[in-house]
């Protein structure tokens, strides 16, 4: 939430963003967050979080066209503020589709192509996470990855779709 406030500041083009709550949290101390008194007289002190400017946002989309117009189904989680705050946006997507398909329902396009620097088609690219509506979380793969043992990372990477040649 405080991170999102920082992303919002970046997407709004301002140096900081007020955010609700935070009072009583030591996160304010270790992050050196300041409060501002409401200049309009409510008497409330509000925490302000500095802008967070990601260099690059990588957004995994369901469908993308050759121009980078990217469609996401289901919950967008943080895709919207991340893509607006970042200096550069890269799209990975399950499928390459013709632009005419996106024209049919433009409200489903989360990131317009003019914001996008590069696109990669990566089928199963959210693995071992889920990608609505194509596939669910691969819980056994997550559990194998969680094991604290030699070679776990190498095995995980060898199993990943990008290693198996999924990128075009």
């Amino acid at each position: 939430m405080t991170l999102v406030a920082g992303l919002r500041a970046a997407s709004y083009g301002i140096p900081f963003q007020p955010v609700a709550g935070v009072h009583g949290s030591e996160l304010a101390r270790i992050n050196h967050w300041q409060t501002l008194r409401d200049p309009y007289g409510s008497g409330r002190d509000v925490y302000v979080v500095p802008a967070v400017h990601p260099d690059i946002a990588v957004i995994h989309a369901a469908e993308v066209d050759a121009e980078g117009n990217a469609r996401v189904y289901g919950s967008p989680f943080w895709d919207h503020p991340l893509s607006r705050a970042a200096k550069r946006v890269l799209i990975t997507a399950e499928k390459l589709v013709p632009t005419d398909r996106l024209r049919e329902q433009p409200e489903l396009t989360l990131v317009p192509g003019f914001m996008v620097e590069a696109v990669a088609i990566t089928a199963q690219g959210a693995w071992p996470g889920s990608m609505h509506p194509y596939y669910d979380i691969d819980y056994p793969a997550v559990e194998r990855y969680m094991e604290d043992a030699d070679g776990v990372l190498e095995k995980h990477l060898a199993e990943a779709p990008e290693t198996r040649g999924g990128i075009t």
Partner: protein
Amino acid sequence: MNIADWTPFSFIVVNLARQIHAGEITFSGVNSTLPMLACLLAKRAYDFPFTYINVAGGVEPQPITIPQSSSDPAIVHGSPAIFANQDFYDLCARGGLDLVYLGCAQIDAEGRTNVSAIGSWENPKVRLPGGGGAAVMLPTAKRVVTWRTDHSTRALVDKLDFVTAAGNMTALVTPLAVFTRDARAGSRFILESYQPKTTIAHITAHTGFQFDTAQAQPAAPMTVRERDALNALDAGEQFSAAVNH
């Protein structure tokens, strides 16, 4: 499952569900499988209406399968709307979430939580995953409820190693006990109810903070509807197995 026999799993989930009030907007977040089950149980076992929204963006979902993870898109299935991260955090910030379940690694008698570090922040013994919005949600939600699957002096502490969030915590549910506090008055947790097969002395010995026991009662038994709803949600026993080991 016999109604008279609580397990750690059933005690936690049913007592989390009992925190929900009629007409409320209730939210479960990431890494919150037991609160997710509590909200789904309440939908099945209680007649009053309430709104359930979750971190995957689901609003009044009708899941076909109950996912292992509380942020799995399966918990959005059947929702007539998507209400994603920005929306539910903003709703909480403006005072529109009535009941929020937030996890904790440590909790103190004032209901403050630590999900940041064990040991000092600068030189931690364990670095924890972080608040996930807790510093904003705990003070802005009308009521917050937390849980622990262990009842120990490690988790229920007199002094937190780090204060991640402070605010409107009103209940703590463990396999043995339900503690409640008046957040508006800023009061300490009191023991409200407990697993009938344990004793107040046992709970006291395993709790790191001091608490009042004057109002403590054995927890009311599970109702038939609570039991049946829990059995249906845990049909494969994967959820109970993870807690009752």
